[in-house]
């Protein structure tokens, strides 16, 4: 008998076992939807760039993306983490290189530039038919609307307020400031907190980054000044100069700021407050979570910005946005994920974890936000919230960083006067108004 054609018992068993494995694998493939979400053949994943300033966000976003991916079977969201310091640079390189992600998380002051580059998808039609459209705070919509086009979804909103140490108030026997406090009261408190020989200062002034210029601008608004009026740059008006001079005197004359103020950025103003070097600083609600850990929930509180001589005050409103790019390969998928992030549960989870304020009124009204003393100052600031005037022209955001910040640093160091600083800055802004 030809052995090549014979079928031994062993070979038969091997063949049957092999066929069984193939059949089981096949069955598992058919039953895949019952085991794990199945990706539709050919569906493009959604590339989502997320900038990370601290580790909490990674865990949070991983869980939210995973939950979204499990909730539907058509495509997957792939998250790409980028350190926050490089996020803008990477996006610009990706846009100019023609391969931006489908979706990204950015602050609204960048979106204007990206829109100017012609890179951002107009989502007006989708947004206006979205179920939560009417629930989003109108000012939040303003921050993401350019020339009547909605270009992003506001994931979270922020307003600037003043953080202050309640424990140091008690220690020094000082009177608790009230939400309608004035510049004079702010200065008096800053002086009372300052004990330079003990390395303690009243106010953590910011000298680095975009907000180094935005904070004094908010003080200028409290003195009746504006950045743009009737289409003209008026940031060098007398009211603005007087207000900025008063602000700079906190460092130059009253010396209630740390000596490092001219280069202190976000990390430094938050850290010095946490370590007890400063007792007040200006920031949005984004650092409240960190201060709860650093200082303790019962040892600090927040207030709206103080009322200025013009009996006014303003707090600039910013949005953390989800922005879709024109070059997105899966626009429908990107939209589904964007809108998912603003649904009740993800929005609540996101904002409570990071100490931010949600853009939707119905979520914002929940006690977790409205009754939290660490957020009280920001919730009370809603009536004085205005869209940052520097969002008016796409080129202004970049000019603040490249020209405005060095100018305000010079003023903080006494190298130029408030007037000279604002005159030069006004000229720079005028050139970028085309």
């Amino acid at each position: 008998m030809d052995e090549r054609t014979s079928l031994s018992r062993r070979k038969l068993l091997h063949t049957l076992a092999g066929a069984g494995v193939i059949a089981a694998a096949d069955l598992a493939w058919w039953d895949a939807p019952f085991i794990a979400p199945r990706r539709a053949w050919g569906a493009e994943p959604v590339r989502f760039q997320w900038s990370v300033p601290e580790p909490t966000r990674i865990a949070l976003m991983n869980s939210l993306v995973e939950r979204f991916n499990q909730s539907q079977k058509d495509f997957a969201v792939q998250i790409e983490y980028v350190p926050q310091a490089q996020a803008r640079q990477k996006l610009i390189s990706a846009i100019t290189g023609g391969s931006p992600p489908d979706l990204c998380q950015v602050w609204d002051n960048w979106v204007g530039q990206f829109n100017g580059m012609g890179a951002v998808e107009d989502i007006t039609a989708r947004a206006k038919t979205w179920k939560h459209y009417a629930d989003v705070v109108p000012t939040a919509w303003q921050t993401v609307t350019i020339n009547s086009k909605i270009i992003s979804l506001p994931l979270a909103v922020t307003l600037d307020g003043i953080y202050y140490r309640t424990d140091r108030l008690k220690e020094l026997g000082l009177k608790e400031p009230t939400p309608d406090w004035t510049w004079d009261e702010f200065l008096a408190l800053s002086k009372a907190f300052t004990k330079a020989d003990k390395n303690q200062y009243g106010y953590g002034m910011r000298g680095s980054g975009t907000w180094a210029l935005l904070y004094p601008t908010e003080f200028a608004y409290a003195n009746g000044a504006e950045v743009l009026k009737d289409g003209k740059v008026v940031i060098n008006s007398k009211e603005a100069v007087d207000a900025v001079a008063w602000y700079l005197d906190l460092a130059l004359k009253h010396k209630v700021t740390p000596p490092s103020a001219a280069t202190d950025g976000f990390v430094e103003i938050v850290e010095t407050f946490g370590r007890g070097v400063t007792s007040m600083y200006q920031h949005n609600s984004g650092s409240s979570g960190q201060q709860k850990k650093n200082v303790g929930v019962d040892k600090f509180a927040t207030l709206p910005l103080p009322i200025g001589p013009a009996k006014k005050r303003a707090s600039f409103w910013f949005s953390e946005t989800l922005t879709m790019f024109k070059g997105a390969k899966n626009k429908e998928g990107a939209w589904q994920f964007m809108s998912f992030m603003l649904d009740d549960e993800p929005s609540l989870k996101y904002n409570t974890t990071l100490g931010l304020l949600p853009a939707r009124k119905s979520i914002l009204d929940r006690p977790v936000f409205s009754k939290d003393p660490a957020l009280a100052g920001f919730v009370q600031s809603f009536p004085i919230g205005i869209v940052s005037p520097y969002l008016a022209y796409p080129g202004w955001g970049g000019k603040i960083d490249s020209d405005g910040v060095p100018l305000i640093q010079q003023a903080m160091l006494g190298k130029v006067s408030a007037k000279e600083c604002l005159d030069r800055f006004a000229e720079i802004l005028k050139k970028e108004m085309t």
Partner: protein
Amino acid sequence: MTTLTVAKPRTRPLISWRVRKLLIGYSYLVPAALCMLATVVVPILLAIKMSLYADILYKPQDYRFIGLGNYLRLVEDPVFWLTLRNSVVWVFGSVLLQFLLGFAAALLLQQAFTGRALVRTLTLLPWIIPGVVVGLIWEWLYQPNYGVINDLLIRVGLMQERVAWLSSPDLAMAAVVFTNVWRGIPFFAIMLLAGLQAVPDELYEAAHVDGAGVFARFWHITLPLLRPIIVVATATRIIWTFNYADLIFVMTGGGPANATQITSTYTLLQAYSSLDFGYAGALSVVLLLVMLAFTWLYLRTTKGLEDTE
């Protein structure tokens, strides 16, 4: 019987062996040349082209050829001249001190002592730490309110008040140069140590027998024999430092008030904050020309020194 074989005439090759050998040699270089072309020459040409256009990314409608417009703007830009001056201080301050201290470290490490191998390894530490990490560490050390440097200096009585090292326009550049010196010493130490080990002991012994002192041996033997390494290491380090923006970017961001803004950080700022790629392109081209001019001048001045051996 004898058989006569007629010699066949030798066919003359189409290409002579000399040319063929030359062509084979060049063909080996083609892959490397193509890589250089794609990664060095093409980007330089693109940067030159970019510098001749009004290319502000958020104003695509204004994109147009403006010839030397960006270069004329650069000449009138006071911040550019300030950054050029800062670059000179940054580069020469850093490299000179790195060289002197690195040389001293190499001479010490050349001596025989217990634990030399360990010390040599530890000397490399600052060099192997990434630049961004070095920047963050030193920013923390310099921090005026809770940094170690101020704390130590006050404790030992050398200072009465806290100094804002990175926030003072008079001190910031010195502070970042100091950090760069700390980081760069191992580079010179290791390069020069390798050179020192190659100097034959017989030369020192002969000089010693002839009555040459320590300084004379250093001046007439060590220094001349190390010249080739010194020339190459210094030129390389100067070019690196000119382009090295990490430390300044992390520690001061060019501030306060542009006190530490060097041309390479200013170029980054123009490209990625103002999105003015045309102007950033012009700055890059000028930076390239400055470095080419310097390298040419340096190599011309030191011509022949590298052949001392």
